[in-house]
């Protein structure tokens, strides 16, 4: 795993039959490159081209618009709540699952994974059914003048649900592979449970944690479907950046829509850079992570 980076590439092996011929290689690389170019690079580049269609002035004009600024602020706020919360859940879940044996563990793993495979639309719908004025708790909330749906709390809840498994899924396999011997040694030496967790466990998983947080954050800032169902689409108030893109798009402000999109795409590129750096720098410590999300 990742060792092939540092050891002899297979192509240097004298036995040619354990590698493909040079033309085959070239064809395979070309096919992979073309496929990625068409599917991944092209849409990404298009975002920036469309954003700059009317020049830098229009691009910056979009960012001076108070509604756009409000959308950026709301997106940051939602991520600032959802990501730390899911990081805490991820740490607790991985501690329980990786360090202990108990019945029902597989079921718990499946349940933690569940938000990952349910449609984002359903993630929004369930909160409408719970907290909407026609929902189970709606009348009570209305009486007490508490607003969850079509307000910031609903957007936060939907985002937390969608990004729930992201940190846990990165930590669990790593902590499982690390076992419990280091923690047991620390406890034998007289360290408290919390001290052991903070000084032994956490340093061991810090890069995987950061990695999970990065992915969780990217999804939290970019979520569209779930947030769309609970937002109410009030300009300057309950519009996150992805929803604002849709609104600008429907305002015939295509350049504006792609301008906000380019900001999110820029954020995605920064996320990828940080992720690549982590993988390159800490390949060994991340190795046990299955790199799935």
């Amino acid at each position, binding site marked *: 795993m990742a060792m092939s980076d540092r050891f002899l590439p297979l192509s240097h092996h004298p036995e040619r039959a354990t590698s493909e011929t040079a033309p085959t290689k070239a064809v395979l690389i070309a096919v992979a490159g073309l496929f990625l170019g068409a599917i991944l690079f092209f849409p990404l580049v298009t975002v920036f081209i469309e954003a700059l269609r009317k020049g830098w002035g229009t691009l910056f004009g979009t960012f001076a618009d108070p509604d756009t600024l*409000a959308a950026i*602020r*709301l997106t*940051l*706020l939602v991520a*600032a*709540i959802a990501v*730390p919360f899911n990081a805490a859940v991820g740490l607790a879940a991985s501690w329980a699952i990786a360090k202990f044996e108990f019945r029902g563990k597989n079921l718990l793993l499946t349940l933690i994974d569940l938000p990952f495979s349910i449609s984002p639309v359903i993630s929004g719908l369930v909160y*409408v059914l719970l*907290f*909407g*004025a*026609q*929902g189970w708790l*709606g009348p009570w909330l*209305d009486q007490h*003048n508490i*607003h969850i*749906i*079509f*307000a*910031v709390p609903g957007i936060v809840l939907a985002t937390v649900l969608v990004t729930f498994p992201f940190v846990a899924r990165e930590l669990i396999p790593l902590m499982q592979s690390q076992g419990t011997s280091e923690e047991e040694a620390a406890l034998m030496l007289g360290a408290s449970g919390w001290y052991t967790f903070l000084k032994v466990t*956490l340093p061991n998983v*810090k890069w995987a944690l950061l990695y999970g947080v990065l992915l969780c954050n990217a999804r939290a800032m970019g979520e569209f479907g779930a947030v769309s169902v609970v937002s*109410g*689409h*009030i*300009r*300057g*108030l309950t519009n996150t950046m992805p929803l604002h893109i849709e*609104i600008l*798009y*429907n*305002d*015939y402000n*295509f350049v504006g829509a792609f301008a906000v999109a380019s900001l999110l795409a820029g954020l995605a590129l920064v996320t990828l850079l940080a992720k690549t750096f982590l993988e390159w720098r800490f390949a060994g410590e991340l190795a046990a992570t299955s790199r799935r999300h």
Partner: protein
Amino acid sequence: MRLLTRRSLALGAAALFLSFEAAQALADRTLLNVSYDPTREFYKDFNAAFAADWKAKTGETVTIEQSHGGSGKQARAVIDGLQADVVTLALAGDIDQIAAKTDKLPKDWASKLPNNSAPYTSTIVFVVRKGNPKGIKDWNDLVKDGVQVITPNPKTSGGARWNYLAAWAYAEKATGGDEAKTKQWVADLYRNVPVLDTGARGSTTTFAQRGIGDVLISWENEAFLVQKEFGADNFDIVVPSLSIKAEPPVAVVEGNAKAKGNLDVAEAYLKFLYSPEGQKLAARNFFRPVDPSSADPADLARFPKIDLVSIDKDFGGWTKAQNEFFADGAIFDQIYKPTN
């Protein structure tokens, strides 16, 4: 280092939250207008005018927040708890739904303001590509083979329901009132629809920006806006022989406005729609004002004369039309049953 990160994270979150609160506290009063799709440009102008007027009269600063979407979808959001002070929707049926499903609106909301609470009207016309390459002149050209028609989903869009009813009225007249033939005609029309968006604005984007379809069935105001936004040299407007008088109504959502202490400003806001300034702005944004006297004659001259049917006289009102055509399992659903 870890503690530092955590502390700065918490600080950042707090700062964000404060700035968010500050942004909210900036305005003295905020009013939420939940509206349908093609009113975006009109209410942008109108909100600025009203805020200035309110400031001059009371000294208060009022900020109007806007939410736009398909009319049915917006009504549903208000029913589900969206805290609208006023609703300005595409058709009376959607406000009736809010009145029926919540106690936030009186059942007789339509009688609170002049002209059944519709401060402006509009109608349904066609938009075609420059030079009208498919030679579309009237409704019967839309059911021809090889003509692609763009219209939104009547289940979610108010404009789409007006489109549907205008088409129905034409078909009924053309077939001499034969219901089975009328139904078949309308089904043929929808068979020519390649994209069914959830709102009128989505359909316009599909047609104008994405280049799909030969003809867009559209609100009149939206049709003019297409020419304005995408260039009059790219699109032509075709006026059919028969259309429908679309009356987009407005109402104060009393339950919400009272709870937010906004009843006075909400009522003033809607009344301002009927004022000379409101009417003038409506005409400028391609809505037909109910009181044309204060509008700019040049704006009025843009509206063509069309034979118009009426929802109340020809379809027996929205409740009946809704049940007959758009309810679950009603005529529109039958069109989208796979019959062959």
